[in-house]
């Protein structure tokens, strides 16, 4: 199919993904964002969350990504994140344990509350990504 664009996902430890994709759903800091080919140039901060990349064959690759940035330019999407876990490698038990722990936590300060919300969203995100395996 002609409507593809190159997508690269890198972390500080390795290059996780590099293929032509038809659609990319990325977790921008203010919500989920969808990108298709010939999108206008974009430079956006990413938050923790689910990333879905649909390759040219129609297969969806799901990842849980840590914070980072997405740059779309000249029909090339570059994703630089602190960590990227493929859906197949997400451990359901540990995500559920983390969710349980975060929900049970008592947050006394604003910082702790923010961290609690973030951890809850992270574990929920991981569990929902794993469901797509």
């Amino acid at each position, binding site marked *: 199919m002609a409507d593809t664009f190159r997508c690269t996902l*890198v972390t500080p430890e390795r290059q996780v993904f590099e293929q032509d994709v038809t659609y990319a759903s990325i977790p921008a800091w203010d919500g989920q964002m969808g990108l298709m080919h010939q999108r206008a140039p974009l430079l956006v901060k990413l938050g923790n969350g689910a990333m879905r990349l649909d390759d040219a064959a129609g297969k969806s690759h799901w990842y849980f990504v840590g914070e980072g940035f997405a740059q779309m330019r000249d029909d090339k999407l570059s994703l630089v994140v602190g960590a990227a876990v493929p859906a197949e490698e997400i451990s359901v038990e540990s995500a559920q344990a983390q969710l349980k722990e975060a929900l049970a936590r008592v947050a006394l300060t604003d910082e702790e509350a923010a961290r609690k919300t973030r951890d809850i969203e992270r574990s929920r995100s991981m569990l929902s990504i794993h469901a797509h395996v």
Partner: protein
Amino acid sequence: MAKTREIKRRIRAVGNIKRITKTMQMIATARFQAAFRRASAAQPYTRKIAELVGELAATASAGGTISHPLLKSDKPATGRKLLLVIASNRGLCGGYNANILRVATAFLRDNKEAQIDLEIVGKKAQAYFKFIGRPVAKSYTQFGDNPRYEDVVQLADQYMQLFTAGGYDSIDVISMGFISMAKQTPKAVRLLPLENPAAVAGEKAPAASVQYDFSPEPTELLNELLPITVKTQLFQCFNEAVVGEQIARMVAMKAATDSAGKMGKELTRRYNRARQSAITTELSEIIAGAAALE
């Protein structure tokens, strides 16, 4: 004969040592390849971050100068600096640690007027500074042959916090730099403060050639990217240090193996000479004895 027995013992000892150094050379080679692959795998990330900083700097500075707590500023000097020295835990790596510690000592000497807090990675650095009597503020042991990004990030976050709190004028890192397989030289990297990216970018390209959709504002994006630059720089220092250590050990153990081989050959020749002279002596004694009986 006693002499031949001694030499035979030495030949066996040298043979054992040769086997050990050869094994160490092979292990170092394998570890080097793994470390080099890891260091190379980190490059795309580091390059991309630098590219994004460059692109943002041109845009962000168009509205005025960029300022950030991690950048160079005109704030009054505190007279305190922090130096991180990265050496190895194990020895038998040739001149690796000596070279790094020499550069570190020179740095400490050249910056005598400042109060320098010394932090170290590696037992060899610990032993050295203890020997010369230089007090060490902190010693990190969790970084091994395979420094993890999360561990380095923790250290980088700590340093950035200390720096922005006004504790230090600068934070420098001295470690082995990798230039090529044949060339590694110790380098002193100024981790903080960072060079103003607008100043760096301005020399190269004009204003951003691409009109981006920025989310959030370019200034805020840049502010998020600068700490990441610090983290990747520190990670690169650690990666190059590990690669350099494995190469140094490879080279040292190869030299040791070759020396052991040469020594073994030399000793074998001596052994044969000693054996032959013992036989000759015995023969002449027998002949002399036989002649005396006639």
